[in-house]
């Protein structure tokens, strides 16, 4: 069990509710999917396992058993009791030690994965919070989260992973962000002004959250005013609703809407949007679907390589028991492809 000592905005989440959209519920889940996946890979979990998403503020917890954890995402100082540890690498924590994440300066969301993951309530196979229907495991001071202890607690003096070059690709956080978008299906409804999306940067407004990011700037203008019948909108849809802001939908978006879709943010760039703060500037860049696909495949290959390296490292350290599948999440039909690398 894990006891939360300090939390402001933190939840238990996963990669999302893939069965949700067909039933009218958004996919939700980790807003920076790359960081979430890497955190789980580093502790030899299934990428779809539940993990903690910490937003903006300090977070601390203590466990009553030994843990193997990994912290990824927006940079924070990570302390285990008083010893500072790195992010983007596995860290061994003994029972009773406190893990403290402090001072997020850039980026917005940090992930904590624990080997074995957590036992938390599921809705349609996912623990991802849905703020609209009021579902999810939200962490406060004093919250407890049951850790699945499917393997014996790990205490091994050789588990200082800083010795190993895991070669994790760490994204850049903060500063001006370039966001790749492909053409939207309704770009023709912004005739003459659609290109404004690419001319000047947009500034992220405070009214942004997991449902969508609102941005101010030189707005494209919708030329048709016909009422559009509700239809499915993809995560990443760029819309121009009434008012003076651009709206970019993220993973908590309502699955149906009646606004035309001007452009769609690529899956990789959605991770970057999951890390931008209000006040940050965003510049959109046009990308072909083919190029976006290549990026996605390269991204997948990087994650697979990392899983392979991690499995080698754990085997070399005589911790091969970590690599055996434990009571993993219930596989969802037609969800993300099964990953190789772990026997």
């Amino acid at each position, binding site marked *: 069990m894990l006891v939360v000592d300090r939390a402001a905005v933190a939840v238990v989440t996963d990669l999302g509710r*893939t*069965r*949700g*959209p*067909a*039933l*009218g*519920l*958004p996919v939700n889940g980790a807003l920076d999917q790359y960081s979430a996946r890497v955190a789980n890979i580093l502790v030899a979990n299934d990428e779809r396992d539940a993990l903690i998403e910490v937003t903006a503020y300090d977070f601390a917890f203590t466990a009553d058993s030994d843990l193997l954890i990994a912290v990824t995402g927006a940079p924070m100082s990570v302390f285990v009791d008083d010893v500072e540890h790195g992010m983007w690498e596995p860290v061994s924590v003994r029972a009773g030690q406190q893990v403290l994440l402090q001072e997020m300066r850039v980026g917005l969301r940090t992930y904590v994965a624990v080997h074995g993951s957590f036992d938390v309530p599921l*809705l*349609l196979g996912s623990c991802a919070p849905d703020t*609209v*229907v*009021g*579902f999810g495991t939200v962490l406060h001071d004093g919250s407890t989260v049951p850790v699945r202890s499917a393997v014996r607690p790990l205490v091994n003096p050789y588990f200082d992973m800083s010795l190993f070059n895991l070669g994790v690709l760490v994204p850049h956080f903060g500063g001006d962000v370039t966001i790749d978008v*492909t*053409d*939207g*299906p309704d770009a023709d409804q912004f005739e003459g002004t659609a290109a404004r999306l690419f001319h000047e940067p947009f500034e992220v407004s405070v009214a942004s959250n997991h449902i969508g990011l609102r941005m101010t700037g030189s707005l494209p203008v919708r030329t048709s005013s016909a*009422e*559009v*019948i*509700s*239809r*499915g*909108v*993809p*995560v*990443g*849809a760029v819309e121009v*609703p*009434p*008012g003076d802001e651009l709206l970019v939908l993220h993973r908590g*978006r*309502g*699955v*149906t*809407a*009646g606004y035309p*879709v001007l*452009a*769609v*943010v*690529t*899956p990789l760039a959605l991770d970057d949007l999951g890390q931008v703060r209000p006040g940050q500037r965003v510049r959109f860049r046009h*990308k072909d*679907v083919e190029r*976006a*696909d290549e990026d*996605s*495949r390269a*991204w*997948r290959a990087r994650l697979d390589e990392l899983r392979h390296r991690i499995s080698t490292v754990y085997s070399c350290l005589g911790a091969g028991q970590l690599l055996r599948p434990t009571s993993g999440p219930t596989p969802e*039909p*037609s*969800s*993300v*492809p099964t990953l190789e690398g772990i026997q």
Partner: protein
Amino acid sequence: MTDTLAADRAVVAACGPAALRVTGATGERERDWRLVHHLARRLADEQVVGVLGSIPTYESVLVEIDPAATDLQRVRTETERLIAAIDLDEPLSCAPRHFSVPVVYGGDSGPDLGRVAEITGLHTEDVIALHTEPLYTVRCLGAPGGSPMLDGPAFPVPVPRLASPRTNVPAGAVSVAGRQATITPARAPGGWCVIGWTPLAVMDLAEEPPVPYRPGDTLSFHRIDEATASRLAGARLQAGEAAQP
């Protein structure tokens, strides 16, 4: 061959890098609707590689893919094959269930009833009469929270969405917009005109799926007073006897 048949039936277009939008083109609304829902079911049944899921609505379906596992062209080919094989006259459900929804109209429960009357040029009583008249078909489950999306009542003109959406529409809100109508199962922001409110709990997170109706089921509204509403408050929306249209 099959591609030609698919092209006659639907327009398949990219909707960004990770989704296809398939829009029915049969020339007939009911067939378009059946087409997109049957397609969504086939895609799920056949577990097409790289297809994460789909969102079927009135006349289109958004097919979401994982671009790291497949590409749009491959899914497009597969989708067209499935489209060509669909029987457009096959009903979505052999045994549609019926849901009868009690509604308190106007006042605090339906703050936009007057506005809808004004826009349509009707008396509020006529707006209510037109809203309670049809036997609606649940066209699809939409936002927020699996709302039952319906064809709107036979108002003389479509009802525009609110110029500035409300930040908080309560669960149970009964609303109309354009040529559509719905009930909101969960509290959420919304730009539709709220004409009434049902005291029934539409959603139950302990159930799977959390809302009881499916596309193809039928639904009707009937008027109740405040006293009846307080008596019904919190009861669950359940399938019952078919209403007399």
